């Protein structure tokens, strides 16, 4: 079943949407046919690793391992059943690996090639150009879960927290929070139609669709917050907003630059454009003691701190900065000041 999905994707996906690269892809995989007699998984991984290396494809070994494992029905080469390491592959499997590898030669991210990736404990469907969740964001979710666990139950009658995610992409953050917090509800917004569709599909695949409200919304538009008011004040706002500085976009790897939606990455001159919009809208939607959790660039904690000080009308305080697993300041916890209640003055 899984294999069929993979093969179908391999054949249906890509050429239609990316007509430009198809011709190249086609011509580039013919010369890379593995020599006859090269038929088991281990040998195929070596073969494609060598091809990728020769063509300067990053993560050559990892890419070929993921592709071969995927076609054989496993998530990683490490977790492949041992008999499958040495067992000959069928012509269909060989062709499928060939097909998927040709996409990698075009620098397509492995996650798009496989059409799925894991986040926290969940397997999520991935499709271009929707932003691929990064491992750092798993830690953002961890932090939110820790805070929810520590918080006294102020939420009242409804049970679990009501959470707003801005820029949901594939739905990774929202859906992992929902799966860990059985009482919670999420409002997920994104301005991209592809993201809205993918979040909806992932929610359905994980049977979490009953607790998530997915709304197409551009938070940079004037008065956009008003659309969210009917869903009531929220306990938490979570976001991994586009935070790459505009001048850095050009230096990103082709995997990112040519495949992922720039709107999910480009945060403007100082990477603050969307962050500022989220922070401006948060006080209107948050409950009195509500919090905002953000993933940001390591330069942002300082920038956001001073920006908030310049906007006392928002009544938001930067209460904590957390580092990611590489030791870079990456996550922000911003809380609504207890002292001041009600909406900001400029309403």
């Amino acid at each position, binding site marked *: 079943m899984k294999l069929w999905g993979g093969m179908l994707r391999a054949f249906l996906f890509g050429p239609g949407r990316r007509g430009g690269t198809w011709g190249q892809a086609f011509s580039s995989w013919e010369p890379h046919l593995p020599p006859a007699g090269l038929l088991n998984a*281990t040998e195929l991984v070596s073969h494609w690793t060598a091809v990728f290396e020769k063509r300067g494809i*990053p*993560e050559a070994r*990892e*890419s070929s391992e*993921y592709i071969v494992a995927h076609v054989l029905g496993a*998530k*990683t080469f*490490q*977790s492949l059943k*041992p*008999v499958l*390491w*040495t067992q000959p592959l069928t012509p269909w499997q060989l062709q499928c690996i060939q097909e998927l590898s040709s996409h990698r030669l075009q620098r397509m*991210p*492995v*996650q798009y090639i496989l059409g799925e*990736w*894991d*986040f*926290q*404990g969940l397997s999520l469907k991935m499709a271009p150009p929707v*932003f*691929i969740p*990064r*491992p*750092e964001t*798993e*830690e953002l979710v*961890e932090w939110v879960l820790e805070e929810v666990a520590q918080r006294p139950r102020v939420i009242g009658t409804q049970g679990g927290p009501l959470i707003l995610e801005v820029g949901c992409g594939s739905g990774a953050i929202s859906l992992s929070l929902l799966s860990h917090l059985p009482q919670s509800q999420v409002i997920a917004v994104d301005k991209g139609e592809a993201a809205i569709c993918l979040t909806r599909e992932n929610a359905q695949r994980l049977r979490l669709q009953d607790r998530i409200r997915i709304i197409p919304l551009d938070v940079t538009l004037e008065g956009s917050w008003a659309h969210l008011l009917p869903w009531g004040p929220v306990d938490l706002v979570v976001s*991994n907003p*586009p*935070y*790459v500085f505009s001048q*850095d976009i050009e230096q*990103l*790897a082709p*995997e*990112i630059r040519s495949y*992922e939606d720039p709107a*999910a*990455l480009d945060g403007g001159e100082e990477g603050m454009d969307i962050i500022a919009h989220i922070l401006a809208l948060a006080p209107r939607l948050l409950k009195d003691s509500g919090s905002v959790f953000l*993933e940001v*660039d*390591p330069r942002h904690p300082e920038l956001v701190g001073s920006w908030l000080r310049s906007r006392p009308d928002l009544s938001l305080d930067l209460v904590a900065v957390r580092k*990611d*697993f*590489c030791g*870079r300041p*990456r996550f922000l916890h911003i809380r609504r000041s207890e002292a001041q209640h009600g909406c900001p003055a400029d309403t």
Partner: protein
Amino acid sequence: MRSRLLLSAARCLWARGAVAPARRHISCDRLQLEELFARGGPLRTFLDRQAGSESQVRGPELVAIAKLLSERERELRETEHLLHDENEDLRKLAEDEIASCQKEIAQLKHQIILLLVPSEETDENDLILEVTAGVGGQEAMLFTAEIFDMYQQYAAFKRWHFETLEYFPSEIGGLRHASASIGGSEAYKHMKFEGGVHRVQRVPKTEKQGRIHTSTMTVAILPQPTEINLVINPKDLRIDTKRASGAGGQHVNTTDSAVRIVHLPTGVVSECQQERSQLKNREMAMKKLRARLYSMYLEEETSKRYSARKIQIGTKGRSEKIRTYNFPQNRVTDHRINKSLHDLETFMQGECLLDELVQSLKDYADYESLVEIISRKL
């Protein structure tokens, strides 16, 4: 009801008659434990003293059960005489009575063992299973893969949770090293006896001239500490990932999710690349690291206590050859208790036969601790 009355009446009559040889329904695995329970044996003397002493270290429960055991045994002896009665109905009744009596006696003995043998702190814990190929090249690796499968099936048989943490195969489908997390009811209590060197004797698939080879592999069983058992200072850990260089976050999209954790004070290293999610890999690597550190700590604590025993747990036992799988003779022999089982294929399916051997080892370990307790108290 009438039959019970009849039985007790008949028993009284027979009690004065000739003594018939007692039927023994004891399987030979439990023999040593049974010998301890023999009338006039050391355990009985110990139990009698318990009953007589004022302190009653193990509480009144033990004394009560010991008393009940004596009564049931007397009843059994008396009933056994009836097996020679002329009355067929009575003989039939006696047989039934004996069966139920023996069952009860076995249960009582089991209760006494449970009360006397101290359960280990870790018995209820989950555990990490580690298998590593030893001497014998590819053949040792093939055997290691088979043993790993056997334990995976044993976990399924015992309805335990089994999760592979790492798996490093060899070129021809063997296994260099693997580890798994096993959890469930009394998982460590059962699995702890599996640690040590396992030896295989057979004609390897790779052998062309039909000669029998001897190869080995090593099993390590590490109890998984609970949060309270072991506290690790996060500052003592270095976590390595492929994302350590560069800007990270949205700036990069790498798929290498492998994680390596180093515990700086001890130099213990734990790695995982089993999952696509880096967070999951980190959790699994951490699980393994905690188990390794915990077993190091435990070994320091317990090495003195158990040094004299035949059945060793931990590092001491890890270098000891505990079991031989002899394929030409279709036999598996555990050298610690000198027990052999036949039908290797069934044994390696990790079901009843392996469970039987594990049970025997548990019994023997109980026997050893009982002997220790009795000799201490006498």
